[in-house]
């Protein structure tokens, strides 16, 4: 409450005095990190100042009229009700102001709509409620999830600077390179927004939209999903890390190696406890949003996994659901999102946890089975 009063006062100060105050960042758009974002910022400020000037003139004129022509004894009101000359004058004036605004707006628009190919092309796919990034030329990719802990969100731990704006794995792009983003979605409409790049493009199932950027200096840039996409819409941030081209090549090489390592893991012999351990982590990250922490879901929209017939006794169907998703329901396919090991682990985890092992058949699933499923499908 005290803070609110304090800030009410600072608002009054900000509105009445022509001062430059320290908290400008909290009040205005950021100029951003690219040439395009700076041009859009410049356009925003131009339009803002024009609107501010109009607004102040109108309000001052109004204040003057209200004061000057308040009812006074013995003063008779005028009775004019028209002036064609005056009306034509201000109509023309409005039109001129609009033309002045339309010219720079058009030129910035044309620059923003440059959709030539990039030196690097990245496919961005929105999922409920995470972003998937795939480097098209290098054929590597990953998912990027919110990494802020539930404790912080539930006010059980102190929040820090990047609360709700941090992810487990940021998108990495090189500086001084034209990067083009191809933006789409897998389920509902999302929108990929990084204010510092001035890119906001809707991610729409069945469409591929484009955006591009050219970052000069290394840095970390944060944004959020900006199209209502379901209950966790507020929890799918975007973090982009711009690094030097050398660092970027190292990043891509590591990604490629990790991909090969992942594939080898399916050959390894796995114990139930190893799978359970990995599976619990995967469950926490990918499944709790719908199926909840205790696995009981929110029926009827999100079914309970506890005591479920499929989870207890139908291993084949269980694998199939994870691999294909469920038509007409929120359950998506995880075949692309998770590795064979991860899928096997999370299936094993749900079949073992919450007493499912005791009431059901308790069968575990090993990574090889997932690989076989994929191979048989081909």
């Amino acid at each position, binding site marked *: 409450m005290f803070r609110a009063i304090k800030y009410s006062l600072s608002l009054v100060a900000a509105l009445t005095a022509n001062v430059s105050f320290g908290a400008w960042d909290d009040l205005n758009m950021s100029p951003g990190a690219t040439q395009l974002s700076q041009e859009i910022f410049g356009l925003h400020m131009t339009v803002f100042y024009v609107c501010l000037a109009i607004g102040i003139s109108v309000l001052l004129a109004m204040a003057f009229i209200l004061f000057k022509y308040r009812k006074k004894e013995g003063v*008779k009101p005028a009775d004019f009700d028209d002036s064609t000359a005056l009306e034509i004058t201000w109509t023309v004036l409005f039109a001129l102001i609009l033309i002045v605004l339309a010219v720079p707006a058009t030129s910035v628009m044309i620059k923003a709509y440059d959709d030539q190919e990039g030196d690097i092309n990245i496919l961005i796919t929105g999922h409920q409620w995470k972003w998937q990034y795939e480097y098209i030329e290098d054929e590597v990719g990953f998912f990027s999830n919110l990494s802020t802990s539930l404790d912080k969100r539930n006010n059980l731990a102190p929040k820090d600077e990047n609360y709700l704006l941090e992810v487990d794995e940021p998108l990495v792009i090189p500086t001084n390179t034209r990067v083009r983003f191809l933006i789409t979605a897998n389920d509902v409409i999302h929108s990929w927004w990084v204010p510092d790049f001035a890119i906001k493009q809707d991610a729409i199932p069945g469409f591929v939209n484009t955006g591009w950027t050219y970052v000069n200096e290394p840095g970390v840039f944060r944004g959020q999903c900006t199209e209502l996409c379901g209950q966790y819409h507020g929890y799918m941030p975007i973090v982009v890390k711009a690094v030097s081209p050398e660092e970027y090549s190292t990043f891509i090489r590591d990604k490629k190696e990790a991909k090969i390592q992942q594939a080898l893991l399916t050959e390894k012999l796995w114990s139930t406890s190893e799978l359970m351990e990995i599976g619990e982590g995967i469950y926490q990250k990918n499944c709790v949003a719908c199926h909840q922490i205790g696995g009981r879901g929110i029926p009827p929209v999100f079914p309970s996994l506890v005591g479920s017939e499929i989870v207890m006794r139908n291993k084949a169907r269980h694998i199939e659901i994870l691999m294909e998703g469920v038509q007409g329901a929120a359950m998506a396919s995880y075949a692309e999102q998770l590795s064979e090991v991860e899928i096997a682990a999370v299936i094993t985890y749900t079949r073992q946890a919450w007493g499912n092992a005791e009431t059901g058949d308790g069968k575990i699933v090993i990574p090889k089975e997932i690989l076989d499923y994929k191979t048989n499908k081909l």
Partner: protein
Amino acid sequence: MSAVIDSHHDDHHHGPAKGLSRWLYTTNHKDIGSMYLWFSLVMLFIGGAMAMVIRAELFEPGSQIVSPEFYNQMVTNHGLIMVFGVIMPAFVGFANWMIPMQIGAPDMALPRLNNLSFWILPVAFGILLSTFFMEGGAPNFGWTFYAPLSTEYAPPTVTFFIFSVHIMGASSIMGSINIITTILNMRAPGMTLMKMPLFVWSWFITAYLLIAVMPVLAGAVTMMLMDIHAGTSFFKAGGGGDPVLFQHIFWFFGHPEVYIMILPAFGIVSHIIETFSRKPIFGYSSMVYAIASIALLSFVVWAHHMFTVGMPIAGELFFMYSTMLIAIPTGVKVFNWLSTMFKGSLTFETPMLFAIAFVALFTIGGLSGIMLAIAPADFQYHDTYFVVAHFHYVLVPGALFSLLAAAYYWIPKWTGKMYDETLGKVHFWMSFISVNLTFFPMHFVGLAGMPRRIPDYAMQFADWNMMVSVGAFLFGISQLLFLFIVLKCIYNGKAATTEVWEGAKDKGFEWTVDSPAPYHTFSSPPSMESLKSSS
């Protein structure tokens, strides 16, 4: 004609029926107008309570009182109720009460249709609100219900929502037919179209907008119904459908809808400013042409709500230019209001205070509208709190303030009693301060990057959000005071004169009948001569 009147001679003398049946079976425009107004006041408090839940959740960062899922239900239903359950029915209520009285007609042209168009509204909202008690919860996809979130991924209650929207649409269309028919056929002799009061003009144009676009909305929800239950793929990308098509259809309805919620306000504010300036309205015909051109332009600007869907650049530019054009007629209106006050003899009773605040704050909403029209800059504004600030500035200190102004302006004529002027002014100043405290800082958090429709936010937005919440709670409390003022006026107000406001007698037919207005007015049409100013 005279034979008809004679055979119903007795009707003119008995008053309303007694008890509940008066309200259920009434065909009287005043009774129906009152029901519309009470209905929208009740919905204002329901929709307002939802806003309070939203602001309580956003008071501080972190999860506070509701789940993200319930938060989305609040956001969705707050929007739906305020748009379809408060602003629209309230304007229809004023239309019912005032159009017959302003044009010198005894009642609406189609009184039974009038009864039906009101009574299906509580049914529609009963259906909508009942979804809160159903499995899967109430609609949670935003009042704009974009597919496929509202189709493939919607809770099962979406079907009830669709049915409810159909009924609301039917009610609006019937109401509009009635208003157009009344205005075209029942004006007093000598009242040509260009002599009609501006409130009548604004509703005449609004009614055409409603007839044009409510069927489009009905089409959109019907396609959703088909996608959900009949296996079609209008909006289903997986079946070859087009999710963006939904947005085009929705906003082809949605943008005219925005003006449906503001054009009658232009009419109301014109009357109030004219009365309390003790001067005729400046530029009557340009006011009419401005309303008409805003209405026409509203059909060709819809995709400015969709600058980020990936339209071709020609589309972006077309919708940017057409949207900017709307600033011209809107600016004309603001300047006309200022010129009406210029060299007047102004007094500041509560209706005038709300009308002046309307002009000032609607101007702010209009200017942020110009900023939003600039397509490349809109890439940064779109779907942030900047947009939330913009449309609340035009809808709350815009449409809602005009409704409050109209209530204070005409309630003495309806009840025959004056409201408490001191309390009215307290209500005004509380509303004026809190509305700005609530919605002005939203510009800042929006520009700084806070997306709309999120249940929790990053630390940098914390301070402004707390201030917004405090403002919102204050605004909510202020409206309870309004309810008290209305009740006090009805039960305990001082008697009002026929004229009510100084010099109002030649401002319109409604000020020539007794206060309270008799149950049946103008059984014989009044003469335009009676409005000739004596000055």
